[in-house]
């Protein structure tokens, strides 16, 4: 489908940029939302050259979600309509800090869950009303089981996965609009820079982007990307606590 209109929340993330390039190659119309206006301009110039029919940019702090419905309507209006909403933004956060400092924990939860939830609800309302379109929530396998190494981030992602599942269920009633949660595993982006990124489980941003783009087209409500994470997480979820607690995962 070309000429598709999409709003990308958190357009400056590595996976979001790769996804936007895939959309641009299809001649899509895009509205890119993130905090840094100058960086958005650089992205927009690149995407227009790569084939996007139209690129609008909106510098907005997505952590501020109270005016989500109005903002979404404004951005959809600039494109003349809306087929897809991608929720990309988030922050891995500092697990240790979140444990020690309530303010850090609150911020991690607010950014990764509360604000994302509000944007997602607003997007779902909009898509439901028009009876068409897809909401793609980019989540993480970290949300499948609380693990000592990243449970604050994991909790937010887990919450978003459940929210997304619920939205998918709701939107399926009226037919037309859809919601999909894409659970990504290990991806080589600046967000994971501090980790050991070698090994066959790691993919690069463009591979993750292809999975996200596919999920917008079809599939869901929950998609693991790449596919093998479904089985890895099944094993992780089924591991009894007595054994899991012996690890430091």
């Amino acid at each position, binding site marked *: 489908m070309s000429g598709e209109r999409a709003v990308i929340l958190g357009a400056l993330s590595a996976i979001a940029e790769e996804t936007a390039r895939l959309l641009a190659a299809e001649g899509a119309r895009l509205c890119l939302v993130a905090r840094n206006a100058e960086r958005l301009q650089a992205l927009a*110039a*690149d995407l227009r050259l790569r084939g996007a029919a139209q690129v609008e940019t909106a510098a907005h702090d997505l952590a501020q979600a109270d005016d989500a419905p109005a903002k979404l309507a404004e951005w959809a209006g600039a494109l003349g309509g809306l087929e897809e909403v991608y929720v990309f933004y988030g922050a891995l956060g500092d697990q240790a800090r979140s444990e020690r400092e309530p303010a850090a924990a609150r911020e991690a939860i607010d950014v990764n869950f509360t604000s994302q939830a509000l944007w997602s609800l607003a997007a779902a309302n909009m898509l439901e009303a028009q009876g068409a379109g897809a909401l793609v929530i980019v989540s993480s396998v970290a949300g499948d089981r609380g693990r000592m190494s990243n449970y604050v981030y994991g909790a937010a992602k887990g919450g978003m996965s459940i929210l997304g599942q619920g939205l998918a269920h709701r939107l399926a009633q009226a037919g037309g609009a859809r919601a999909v949660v894409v659970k990504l595993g290990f991806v080589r982006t*600046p967000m994971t*820079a501090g980790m050991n*990124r070698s090994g066959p489980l790691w993919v690069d941003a463009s591979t993750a982007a292809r999975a996200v783009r596919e999920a917008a087209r079809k599939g869901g409500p929950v998609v693991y990307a790449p596919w093998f994470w479904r089985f890895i997480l099944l094993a992780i979820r089924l591991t009894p606590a007595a054994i899991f607690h012996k690890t430091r995962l």
Partner: protein
Amino acid sequence: MSEAFAPDPAFRSWGGAIRPLQHVGRPRFRDQLPDLLQQAPGSALAVGMGRSYGDSGLNSSGALIEMTGLDRLIAFDGEARTLRAEAGTTLESLMRFLAPRGLFTTTTPGTAQVTLGGAVANDVHGKNHHAAGAFGCAVRRLGLLRTSGERLELAPGEPLFAATIGGLGLTGVIEWVEIDLAAIPGAAIDNEDVPFGSSAEFFALARESAQAFEHTAAWVDVSRGRGVFSRGNWAPAAAAAPRRGRLAAPFEPPISPLNPLTLRAFNELVFMVKSRGAKQRTVSYAQALHPLDGVTGWNRLYGRRGFWQHQSVVPAANAEDAVGALLKTVAAAGEGSFLTVLKTFGSRASPGLMSFPMEGATLAMDFPARGEGVLRLMDRLDAIVREAGGRIYVAKDGRMSAETMRAGYPRLEEFMGLLDPGLASDFQRRVLEAAA
């Protein structure tokens, strides 16, 4: 160590013969660069896809700024045939953008897996050097960020522009590059393989082919002094989508399959396959110009010890004798080279002070890093090159001496005067500081 730079044990030079630990920062936006330069412990060096074989892309006592995240197109004018892009854009992605539009870079090295910045910093050359010159000939303007924080826009004629082309990243961080483009009739190349039995035959073929063929290069079986001359032109065919790397060498074998036992058989096989008469085929540009890109990670087949590359150029006047001497010396030493490429360069000069190509012939060989014998052999090859008035290609080098460097690059001192003091590389410390 600032958290902007993380130790990366997987980062290595392409040849992998030397593997000191690198600290790497990976920005995604230009506005991150000045801060990164400030935070770098000691010195910094911008790098791209890591295709330099030796130590010109390493900075062991400082940090590396890996630029591939800065890969955005900035401006494009199809009629004027110009393109401006961030320095971390790979030539491969540029070609995928340009080829369907009937355009291409004016030249390309043997792999498209290099960044625009890397292509400029090494002033890379390709099979069409005798027609188009080196990559630096197509650069119209470039954006350079110095560690002082100064952002400069450089144009031909300025000393710093000339120093940056082939400047190994040592004059500043190249942020963006604007290049002239070439028009191509289609994305395929009509190629012909002609076998030859001696280096004299090679030179005759090269002279005969220079006018009528844009892309020429030869593969050589060093032990026998024979080879296959490949020559081609852009074909007026419909755009063929380039093959993506289907084979992958995903690991380093503990014992490399590329060793003297297999070398003989390998060379026989290649010669047999390639020399079944003068074969004409139309192939995609990727097959003709970037054959090894079809095997991802082929360099790892050399095993954990890695390999050395020796690429030299000798001036036209001495080329036949010098190339003959180089090949004889390698054959006599019994050290084999799996991928020996021989090509003639044309007279088109590059604006780069430290540009490698000169009118004459270039010979590139690879040697498994099996010990001192190989290093001594390469020293002997250097001596032959020096005597002929030639030089060694830094992008491939990991072991040449400071004297060889000084002898080969007459504008070295001028270049050293234009370096950015906040940037450095292992190559610079090993060779340039000693040579100056």
